[in-house]
């Protein structure tokens, strides 16, 4: 059975698509068959982050409407053959999806793939509800900042009440907290919520902490998921996230500010 994982947040701009791309690619690099689905109909982004925007012919909505087959719409990643992307439509809106047909597409994908990663749109409207409805697990992406934490809390309430698992009274969706854009220095200065603060408010298990990093923007613009940047802190942190998703126990890194060495102190670096 494929694991259906929704990457969600409530709030926009916190790193859902970046995280979906990094985690999807990371799982594929480990040899798993992975498909990434962009649920953000009308605001197609995942294809850009994955660097396959010029290869989109058919999209998710075409498949839903029976205008194309799944195989026609799926884009195989050029770096890792076990990874595919199902892009969103840029010209349609979120009402183009319906539960029944989305269910059929996921069922079909489940026959081939080990992991189905659903990149959710922001908000709590129909689009976001569609992305989380069939999920087995949820990666709740949160910035260490009060409004983002509150929106994540709201989404956690939705996961517990509006999903298929909740409606059928099955085992609840497994929730993971992914803290992104974390800056230990600003936490120490009291400008940012700490990991402990966020854990205390949301009380769900921590999957990973991605440090604020210049590498993320660079990776997005280049269409190369940041996990491929193995030199960067963000890339390493996403690698840890993938390992934890696969059941490994990995110690958390990048939680404390780097102490300045004697040279950088002397030369003001």
């Amino acid at each position, binding site marked *: 059975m494929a694991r259906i994982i929704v990457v969600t947040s409530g709030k926009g701009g916190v790193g859902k698509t970046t995280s979906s791309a990094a985690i999807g690619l990371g799982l594929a690099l480990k040899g798993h068959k992975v498909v990434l689905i962009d649920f953000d109909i009308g605001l197609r982004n995942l294809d850009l982050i994955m660097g396959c925007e010029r290869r989109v012919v058919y999209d998710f909505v075409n498949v839903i409407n029976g205008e194309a087959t799944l195989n026609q719409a799926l884009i195989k990643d050029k770096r890792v053959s076990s990874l595919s992307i199902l892009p969103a439509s840029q010209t349609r809106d979120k009402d183009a999806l319906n539960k029944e047909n989305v269910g059929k597409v996921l069922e079909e994908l489940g026959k081939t793939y080990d992991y189905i990663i659903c990149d959710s749109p922001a908000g709590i409207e129909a689009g976001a509800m569609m992305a989380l409805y069939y999920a087995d697990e949820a990666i709740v992406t949160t910035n260490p900042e009060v409004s983002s934490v509150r929106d994540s809390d*709201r989404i*956690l309430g939705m996961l517990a009440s509006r999903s298929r698992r909740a409606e059928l009274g099955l085992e609840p969706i497994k929730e993971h907290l992914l803290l992104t854009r974390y800056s230990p220095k600003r936490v120490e200065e009291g400008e940012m919520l700490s990991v402990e603060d966020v854990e205390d408010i949301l009380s769900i298990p921590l999957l990973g902490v991605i440090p604020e990093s210049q590498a993320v923007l660079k990776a997005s613009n280049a269409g190369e998921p940041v996990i491929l940047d193995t030199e960067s802190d963000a890339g390493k942190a996403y690698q840890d996230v993938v390992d934890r998703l696969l059941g490994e126990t990995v110690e958390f890194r990048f939680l404390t500010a780097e102490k300045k060495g004697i040279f950088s102190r002397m030369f003001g670096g």
Partner: protein
Amino acid sequence: MAEASIEFKGSSFTLSVLHLKTSILADISADLAKKVAQAPDFFYLVPVVVSIEKLDCSVDYQAIKLLVESFDFTFVGFTGAITKEQRNVIRELGFSFVNTTKNSILEKSITTTVPAVENIPAVVAATPTPLYTDKIHRGQIRSGQQVYAKAQNLVVIGSVSAGAEVIADGNIHVYGALRGRAIAGATGHHKAQIYCQNLEAELVSINGNYWLSESMEQHWGAPAFIHLTDSELTSSKLT
């Protein structure tokens, strides 16, 4: 059809009851003057029900009403187990007659002299104070969620997130942090209380009296409970 512009609902109120032990107006006047002099602000415009239970038939209702009003009370009506004839006289004079429930557990006698002022609940719509059972909610109540314990106490085993709302007609117990809104005694119950292990609420309300976060500074972030004393919210430390 448009919704009706008015609605009738029964509510309980705590009113001060002035018990008269004599119908001699001069005596009542003298003792009332003494009483009011002790706390003029407290009694100013306080709604008051006059109990004539201990009096015989020869009562000048009109005079008593005017006397009470002359001390700046807001006269509500008469009460007391009296005869049908007395009741008819009161009604004919255009005064209201208020029934009370017979329990006076809340009775707090301020004085033993005549007249005595007590606080007893006057139940206007004859709804006796119910005994509440508990509604138990396991797990966190997330932002945007609302849990209502209708005619019950609410026990939350978990935290109440900011943006969440817990409401109970009885008491509210939160075994976790209270960061959202908590409304106890929602249908009018001034004895309702709110307990939590970490007070960081956006709003707490008991029987319509509410506090925003800024009023909770004293026990902010600490285990605390909130209750009503003399229509004012008070927070106390949970030890």
